[in-house]
């Protein structure tokens, strides 16, 4: 199977999954007890106002029709109107998406820069002092609650030294330096435990590769240990490393909710949480689907990349 056919097949499989996700998101929001119109307007609302809102948001129509109307809108990028401010939700998401994407990508970079060397340090010599230290760091890292790390970084770095801001956001187009200053602590917060996961996996992948015949042969022919590691071990260990980095990047989209809240970043994650707390269900519905779809997209790209690097995966 060629890489293109493989990619096309993976894409086709994503369609039913995306439809399933839309049904779940839609259904979930209809499970909320009580009348959403009453929830929004409050119990003192007049029956006329409730009826008007129900009509405006098509809440008076049968569920399948409501679902199809919503899905049709979503397919055209129209996520409907926000219950509270009557703003188009699609626009709101589009305004906040760049923040979340930048945060996630920066965090993925930080995770790779910390995680891969951590794993190489350990995997290079099994059982040595460096290996044990990297194992311990990895174990502590995966147990680290990210929101606590964020609070600690604010306490020690922002409030302690005043070097970096603890909240707020400046767009990249306005000032790249200030943008980075506002994102570096959130990115470290989001990256830390994922870097530890990546480090543990890198170590396992390196150890697995070192056992192979071609590495033993490279060593036997007298190649320097550094050359063995970088020329033979790392390229072969890269496949699982890339896969896990991709999966971890997807999980960071979920973690962004927590990190954006701590550092008051105007991203989609915080928008989701605010909407949940305000019971603004059309917004929750929209952001859930968008974050879910991005999560799926990242996983899909990882899958395809995996198939491109390793032809064995493409075999049906």
């Amino acid at each position, binding site marked *: 199977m060629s890489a293109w056919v493989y990619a096309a097949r993976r894409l086709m499989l994503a369609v*039913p*999954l995306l439809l*399933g*996700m839309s*049904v*779940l*998101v839609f259904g*979930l*929001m209809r*499970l*909320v007890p009580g009348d959403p119109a009453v929830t929004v307007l409050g119990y003192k609302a007049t029956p006329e106002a409730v009826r008007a809102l129900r009509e405006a948001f098509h809440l008076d129509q049968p569920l399948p029709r409501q679902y199809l109307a919503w899905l049709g809108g979503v397919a055209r990028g129209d996520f409907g109107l926000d219950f509270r401010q009557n703003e188009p939700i699609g626009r709101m998401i589009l305004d906040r998406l760049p923040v979340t994407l930048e945060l996630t990508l920066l965090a993925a970079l930080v995770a790779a820069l910390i995680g891969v060397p951590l794993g190489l340090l350990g995997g290079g010599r099994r059982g040595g002092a460096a290996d044990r230290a990297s194992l311990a760091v990895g*174990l*502590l890292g*995966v*147990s*680290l*609650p*990210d*929101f*606590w790390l964020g*609070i*600690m970084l*604010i*306490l020690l770095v922002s*409030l302690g030294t005043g070097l970096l801001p603890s909240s707020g956001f400046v767009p990249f187009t306005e000032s790249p330096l200030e943008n980075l200053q506002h994102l570096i602590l959130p990115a470290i917060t989001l990256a830390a435990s994922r870097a530890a996961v990546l480090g543990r996996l890198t170590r396992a992948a390196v150890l697995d590769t070192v056992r192979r015949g071609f590495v033993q042969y490279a060593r036997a022919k007298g190649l320097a240990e550094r050359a063995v590691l970088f020329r033979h071990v790392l390229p072969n260990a890269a496949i699982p490393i890339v896969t896990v980095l991709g999966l971890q990047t*997807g*999980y960071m*989209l*979920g*973690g962004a*909710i*927590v990190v954006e*809240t701590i550092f008051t970043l105007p991203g989609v994650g915080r928008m*989701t*949480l605010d909407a*949940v*707390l305000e*019971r603004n269900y059309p917004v*929750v519905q929209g952001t*859930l689907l968008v*974050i*879910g779809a991005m*999560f*799926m997209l990242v996983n899909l790209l990882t899958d395809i990349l995996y198939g491109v690097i390793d032809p064995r995966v493409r075999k049906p």
Partner: protein
Amino acid sequence: MTRGALQRRWAGPQGVALAGLCLVGALVLAALCAPAILPGSPTAIAKDHALRGPTVAEPFGMDDLGRSVLSRVVHAYRVSLGVAVGSVALALLIGGPLGLIAGYAEGVPDQLIMRPLDVLMAFPAILLAIALMSVFGTGAALVSISLAVVYTPVVARVVRAAVIAAKVEVYVDGARALGATVPRLVLGHILPNAATPILVQASVLMAIAILVEASLSFLGVGVRPPTPSLGLMLADGRSFMLQAPWMVVFPGLAIMLAVLGFNMMADGLRDWLDPDRP
């Protein structure tokens, strides 16, 4: 046994698993005996003690309402561990049989069970948990149920994979040839041999459950105050972190310790029971 051999034995996976088990055991014990060992109430307000720093009597200090942080941490473990055990048990109870059927039958039943579960796994866990909490409302029991929904597909996948791997073994064929019924085959031969990955996964899920419960409570969509919860304590402590850093330091360390215990148990078990261990 020589000293070297002894060292190797306890430095290996058994040691890690055992250390994790001891850590978890100690925390469970502390949580169970909380009222007996710490007579102070976790919810009694004493304004004149507000924001008092750590002392010998109160090593974790007092919070903004004069409540003992140590007492609250220990009581909060009841919620943390209760939610973790509840959610994982529920997920095993629902996801286990689903995975068993999917893995044993394969074909159409497999597709019917696994494809809908794929949809649940298509969302980041914390996002799905927040969405479920927004539907269910807040409270410890509801956090358990939400987490169980999030974990059910994970458990089902692990059980399914383990069953598929175990059912082609020769001893299963042998039992079948001897006329074993399907339930006997599954419960007596396949499941016991698929237990290791399930046990490891359960331990990992416990660790994640503690983290997610704390995150949800921190974000205001988890446990309801005044129930002491580690996440809620961190959320409260944020407003006072300059005057009273102990309000954020100790609850965070407490979360990490519990998560570390379960992760060590999972790591140790995985390596210890791994037949390919070098």
